């Protein structure tokens, strides 16, 4: 319901002369940001359409050509079962997207909601929420994820839940920080003074002004989610074969690293390029949306 209003905000936000229109103009001339955007669009394309467009079945084995290097038939080579590494790399994008979108989405919704509540009501409410956040932040996010997985067992959905929980305090803290400063703006007091309900003050008045900070932080967190998902599936704690993920591919390639390094290099490159693309996009968004550069961006592995 509330997020439906965000949609209408996004529509209105692109009026001529609005802050977002100006930001769009700034973004267009931000080279790094545009490169990042192109990479991210490419990544999204492969992640969504990949399984449909790839010429081969990612699990199809070909015992005739095992552990082959790059060639015309297999641009990225083949693995120890003779599966096409290119196909598997393209298909592997989907698992990382799934984990990143859902976990960051969860963290953003929960973090923004609690962060706004904390920054708007302040006082005891803020105190209670922030003490809970302190406890969660006391553990590194990957450790937190490992704890959740240790309890629930490995699996893609559990990774999503674990990362969602692990990233919530980060989103919450950054939202609350900006919310506290926006809370001091007189238009917020004005909205209270003309009788706006608290919920509307938070989401209609305050949220649009936090949006830049939130979107930048979400983009950067997205990159970390992809990295952590790769790490967890490398350790065998996330999705299980036959699901294809970049982390699984690297871990499989590790066993034959000396024979055919390409098996690990290409999924590794895919991770690097995607994470860099997201980071560039985040920097571009930050610069053009003029979000605070208070050093709170990044830091997924504290």
């Amino acid at each position: 319901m509330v997020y439906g209003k965000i949609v209408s905000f996004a529509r209105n936000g692109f009026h001529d002369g609005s802050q977002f229109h100006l930001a769009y103009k700034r973004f267009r001339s931000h080279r790094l940001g545009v490169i990042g955007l192109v990479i991210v669009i490419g990544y999204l394309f492969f992640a969504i359409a990949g399984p449909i467009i790839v010429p081969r079945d990612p699990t199809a084995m070909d015992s005739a050509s095992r552990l082959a290097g790059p060639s015309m038939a297999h641009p990225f080579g083949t693995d120890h079962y003779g599966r096409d590494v290119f196909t598997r790399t393209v298909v592997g994008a989907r698992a990382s997207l799934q984990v990143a979108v859902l976990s960051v989405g969860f963290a953003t919704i929960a973090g923004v909601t609690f962060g706004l509540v904390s920054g708007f009501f302040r006082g005891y409410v803020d105190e209670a929420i922030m003490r809970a956040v302190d406890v969660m932040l006391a553990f590194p996010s990957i450790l937190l994820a490992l704890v959740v997985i240790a309890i629930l067992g490995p699996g893609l959905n559990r990774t999503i839940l674990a990362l969602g929980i692990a990233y919530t305090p980060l989103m919450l803290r950054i939202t609350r920080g900006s919310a506290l400063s926006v809370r001091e703006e007189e238009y917020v007091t004005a909205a209270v003074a003309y009788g706006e309900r608290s919920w509307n003050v938070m989401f209609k008045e305050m949220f649009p002004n936090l949006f830049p900070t939130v979107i930048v932080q979400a983009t950067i967190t997205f990159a970390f989610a992809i990295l952590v998902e790769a790490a967890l599936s490398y350790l065998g704690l996330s999705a299980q074969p036959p699901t294809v993920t970049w982390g699984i591919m690297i871990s499989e390639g590790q066993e034959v690293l000396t024979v055919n390094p390409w098996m690990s290099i290409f999924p590794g490159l895919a991770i690097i390029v995607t994470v860099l693309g997201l980071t560039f996009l985040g920097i571009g968004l930050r610069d053009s949306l003029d979000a605070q550069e208070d050093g709170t961006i990044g830091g997924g592995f504290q």
Partner: protein
Amino acid sequence: MSSSDEPLLEVENLRTEFRTDRGTVKAADGVSFSIERGETYGVVGESGAGKTVTGLSVIGLIDNPGQIVGGEIRYKGRDLRTLSQEELRSIRGDEIAMIFQDPMTALNPAYTVGTQIIDTILTHNDCSKSEARERTIKLLEDVGIPDPEERVDSYPHQFSGGMRQRALIAMALSCDPDLIIADEPTTALDVTIQAQILDLLDDLQEKHGLSIQLITHDMGLVAEMCDRVSVMYAGKKIEEGPVGEIFSSPKHPYTVGLMNAVPRLNDPRERLEAIPGNMPDLIDNPSGCSFRPRCEYATEECKQIEPPLEPAGAGGAHTSACLKLDEIDFDTSIVPDRTTDETPVEGTNFGEPIIEADGLQKYFDPENQSWFEKYLGDRDYVHAVEDVSLTVHRGETLGIVGESGCGKSTLGRVLLRLYEPDEGTIVYSGDDITEMGRSELRNLRSEVQMVFQDPFSSLNPQKTVLDIIGRPLEVHDQVANSEEKRERVVELLEDVGMSERHLNRYPHEFSGGQKQRIGIARALAVEPDFIVADEPVSALDVSVQAKIINMLDDLQEKYDLTYLFIAHDLNVVQHISDHIGVMYLGEIVEFGTVQQVFEPPYHPYTEILLSSIPKHHPDVDEERIDPDGELPSAIHPPSGCRFHTRCPQAMPECETKNPEQRTIDGNHEISCHLFDSDGNPTDEYETTIDVSAKSQMVDPGEPQ
């Protein structure tokens, strides 16, 4: 090198431009002036007139995208524009020093005040560190900082605003400069502190034989401080002359407009004379005279010819850039003061009480208190509002004045229950609003409204004007559909002097004055009866300020509004108010009609506030009473009478006993031990100032 009779600084035809995406901004467009040794030279004008740019150009502090594109800046005969960066740096600080507007950001918080001054001295002088330190202590003593030997090691955050400005002045003085450029040095300070800083500058000027270039928007400061003044408008100097002449017989329509726009104590309390329109965008300045679009005397000729500066008046020292110099009768265009036999209407016949507050109290937690201390340790409070009772009658305007930090804004918000009062009751039209539940409170929000101080922070930057003004209507179901909302918003815009074409714009597309109008339209949307206006004009230029005050007056009449008008500017408050409450550290120390408050007997604090207002004509001779020090902390307010620490007339009993409220006559109330229980001043009471003498303008017809 330089002969002593040539001016210290000569600026000729200075042109400074800023390249922006939209075009070239001509911030200083052919400005010429000179400053003599030992002279205080004022540069006055509204924001955007190019005053600050002129000052920064002199010491070569114009940064990209700005650039000095033409002209000469001669200091002691040397053209500063031809000097290398290295040579320029040796002149900055050593010969020409600058004092900035905001003392809060001009000092580096990471270093002690002393270190920063010592470093300045070491940069320009060949001396040892201990010598520099000694000199610093001496300087701090000179600028009136108590215990300089200890304070030299304090960090900026341990200094109050006034002390920081003193420290900055000490820094400016540290290398014995010959010229100080002071850019709005007191704008960020309270009037009582402003008075102290001005006195200090005056003394130091005499002692060190300094020249001062004083950049300000406040004609009062010019009258108080300057020998000569130039008036700037849209990047150009439009009038210059000795201060006395400029004030007695201004010769430019804009200067006249500026002087008339300022509310004065004892002004006729009718409408303020506002200058129509706004300053032009410095990108496409109109051809001919840049003031032409706003000038009532403008003709076709003004469109064609850019007026040159020509001598106006005898002596040749007074020049003005107006083609109609000989045609306009400037003497009659100045609004005269109210003559003393004209008494204003007594503000007694107002309606029934609309707000009755009794024993209001509001405490806050101090900012630097950790939650551990808050819940487990000794709790401290900021005593923002302490036992305030007041009544506002329907249709009147109650003014609340006081220094920043006295709790006046908090009081305004508590009255609307935007802050929960800790004690006391607020009765609005017979209902106690402190008892109200959520839905009742929401209904109340359509009857009481608020106008805010900062037009830049009071409008949501992400919303259009239509949504900003229309939202309260939706919240209170006063419009059925978007068509109705639109119509109503257009009506409201017209009420505040704006129009339909502004509907779909965003706040950043408007000027400060227009934003304030939008804020007022939003407050009016729900058709309230009572409006709290929290410093609604203090962030605006004088000509805009006059328009907004007039508009508030008109709206009050049209909609039968009741205002609580909060301000620190006594001139503005007296202009708009019927009753005035003077606040000090959370308490109302004096209350009465405008006349009662502004005429003796006063509360000693009111007297100090009145005497701190800069005079509005240089020929007025008056004494100023300075309070001792600055506003004490509201966390541990002084015992007894809270004002006793700064009161020039404090007696022993003031330190221990809280004064009761005495009724002087009618409804004039003062809380002070200098008045006995019948409200008569005791023998100890003495008053030194007389407001009427202060504001009496010299007859413009008479030469001095």
